[in-house]
């Protein structure tokens, strides 16, 4: 049932670490349910090297997937392996892992340096080593100048970056980031995205989750899509996108006279349907989204229409998910 689009599109640009004998992350037939609620069902997945985006709506099972990897949850069935070891039973693989939890609560009374170095010591570093490493990673995420400020006084973006620094302090081979961009201001967003891309370039395995397609697109092309606890796609985002172009798509126009606009647009061969939710709005159905989207501005200008908005309501995760789940966009 899972569309196999793995091998399509351009190959990932990141250099990958030499082929390991065991995958860094391995799920085999993993399900997790809470009573009657199935948070994850029958996930089989192996990942090694590069940045992978885990996409899914809220509640799709992204965090559950990560918590299974981090040994916080026990799978209801199936097998989870982290560097070939069962994380529920053995915490030793975490020496090579950095985890950024989605939880917002942090130890607000600590300074960023304290926070990062204290937890670094749990890797067996001495106090001095921990401090040196902490300063290094805080600098890496761009927080060197506020290292001695209390986390409680940080903005959302700074807190996220502190969490990332805490996860990177042991120079991990695998970095797991659960919604790292949520609630961040644009500047922090850019910094965090750069950090993640940088880690990918260094050959680390990075898993980053998000419910915003656009965010993931700016970080990586390699994605895993979860929907209602099921793995609906994995592979290259562009390949998935190309497929998406072949299916019915909607474009929304908002202008002064929707009916006049419709008359001209109906001439276009790519258009196969129109509808008017109200007097100023026009919804266009098309099979050739890319072509129409490119030609639409010319069409509007040449016919002298006044359009205030061209919107693509389908170009989001939801329509992608609907398509992948077998519906139409």
């Amino acid at each position, binding site marked *: 049932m899972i569309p196999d689009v793995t091998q399509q599109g351009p190959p990932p640009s990141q250099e990958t670490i030499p082929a390991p004998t065991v995958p860094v992350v391995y799920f085999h037939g993993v399900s997790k349910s809470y009573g009657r609620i199935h948070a994850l069902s029958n996930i089989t997945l192996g990942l090694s090297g590069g940045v992978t985006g885990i996409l899914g709506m809220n509640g799709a099972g992204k965090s559950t997937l990560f918590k299974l990897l981090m040994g916080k949850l026990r799978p209801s069935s199936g097998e989870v392996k982290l560097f070939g070891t069962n994380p529920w039973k053995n915490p030793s693989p975490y020496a090579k892992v950095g985890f950024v939890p989605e939880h917002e609560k942090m130890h607000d009374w600590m300074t960023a340096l304290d926070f990062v170095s204290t937890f670094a*010591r*749990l890797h067996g570093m001495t106090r001095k080593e921990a401090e040196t490493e902490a300063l290094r990673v805080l600098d890496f995420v761009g927080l060197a100048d506020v290292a001695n400020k209390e986390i409680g006084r940080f903005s959302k973006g700074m807190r996220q970056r502190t969490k990332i620094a805490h996860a990177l302090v042991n120079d991990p081979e695998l970095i797991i980031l659960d919604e790292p961009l949520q609630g961040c201001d644009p500047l922090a967003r850019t910094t965090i995205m750069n950090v993640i891309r940088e880690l990918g370039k260094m050959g680390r395995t990075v898993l980053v989750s998000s419910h915003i397609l656009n965010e993931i697109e700016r970080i990586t092309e390699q994605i895993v899509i979860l929907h209602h606890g099921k793995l609906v796609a994995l592979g290259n985002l562009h390949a998935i996108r190309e497929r998406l172009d072949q299916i019915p798509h909607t474009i929304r126009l908002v202008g002064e006279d929707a009916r006049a606009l419709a008359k001209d647009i109906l001439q276009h061969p790519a258009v196969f349907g129109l509808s008017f939710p109200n007097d100023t709005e026009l919804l266009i159905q098309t099979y050739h989204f890319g072509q129409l989207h490119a030609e639409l501005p010319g069409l509007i200008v040449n016919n002298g229409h006044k359009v205030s908005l061209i919107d693509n309501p389908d170009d989001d995760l939801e329509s992608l998910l609907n398509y992948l789940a077998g519906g139409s966009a």
Partner: protein
Amino acid sequence: MSRRDGLPSLWSGMDRKAMAVAEFTVRQQRKRLSTWVVLLVGIAAMGVLTMFYIDAMTMDYEAIDNDMDSYDWDLDGYPNGQERLYGTDIFDKNSHPGLIDSSIVPDDPSLWINEDDFDWEALEAGSVGFDDNGDCDDESRTDSQKDQNGNGIPCDIMLVQNTYSKRYMVFADGNVDEDPDDEAYALEAIHRAFVLAIGKLGIVFLIGIFVPLFMATGLIRQEMTSGTMHFMLAKPIARGEVFLYRMFGFLAIAWTYLTVLIALLAIITGLAGPSDGFFRFSDLGVWMSVWLASLLAVMVYGMLFCMLGVMWKHGMVIAIPFAAWELGMILTTLGAPDASILRFSVVGWAMNIVDAGAALAWSDTPLLIQMGVWGGGNGPLEGAEALQFFASTPGLNLSALGTVVVSVLVMIFQAAACWLLGSALFKSKEIE
């Protein structure tokens, strides 16, 4: 980014983790208002109790003239005791020692109060006591009157120790040690009773249970609820280790607190208590045992409550009935220190340690209690009943040192069992 070479050995790694988590826990607790409130309330409570003690130590105890020989019934100016000593009639105004020898002047009546004090400190049962005021070994009395306890020795006290209960029985000849020094006895007995009371109930029980109740119950649970536990558990550290090292941090605070509190109490009572020198060094053994018992008690309670917190979000709901059970047990130790139900408590073992320490430091307490209860044949002296209430013999039927060793081992075992159980529960918990 440079990869670190030279991984630490298992032991140095554990050591570093232990230090990191313990230090983190201490700093975290220090930042909490509730920690300070709990610790300060503890100090305030002990302070109030100490006020009562200071008051008792500085109070005047009425010197009771048990044998009424300070009175002058015939109003001839000579107290009855002095008249009796010279064989004159205490009811006849015209019969007094001044008539026998005019150089004999009337005594100050206060000399005839508390004039026949206890003069036995020997712990061996046998013949003790001395008739200081000569009203037993009086020529006018017959031999049988002088030897009422029938041990063949006139004017003595026969002390018999019950081999089973270890209690002393006092069989006195009449008019021997019948007018003891009420104040000296009251001060000594009340002092000992207070040290035992505050040591057992105040420190080992109240502080020992409430400090862990408020500080250790949430040690793991709070972090699980708030989500901050994710940071710690994302590191290569076993959950059992987290449990143990968090406990180290808690104990660093609780043990320091207890040490300071007990040292303060030892200094205050050592200076304020009755003594020949400026300080009662003889109490230090008791304070040491209170210290040892309280350290072990907070360790066991801490492990237990932390485990209850891991087990259930509302672990305190189970911890409170348990504290009530422990209160019942400590009251049992006061009356029946050898009751076997005490084996199923924490405080019973802790009390064994205190009782053993007290038995070593104040070996004459059982005798002191019986002296006071007998009170010169006139009923209990002030302080005797308080001391009898708070002092008990160690309940294991072993030597004092043996009792301490066994109790310490049992409490360490209890703590270890709670830790293992807590770790197992923690390991099986899924953390959202």
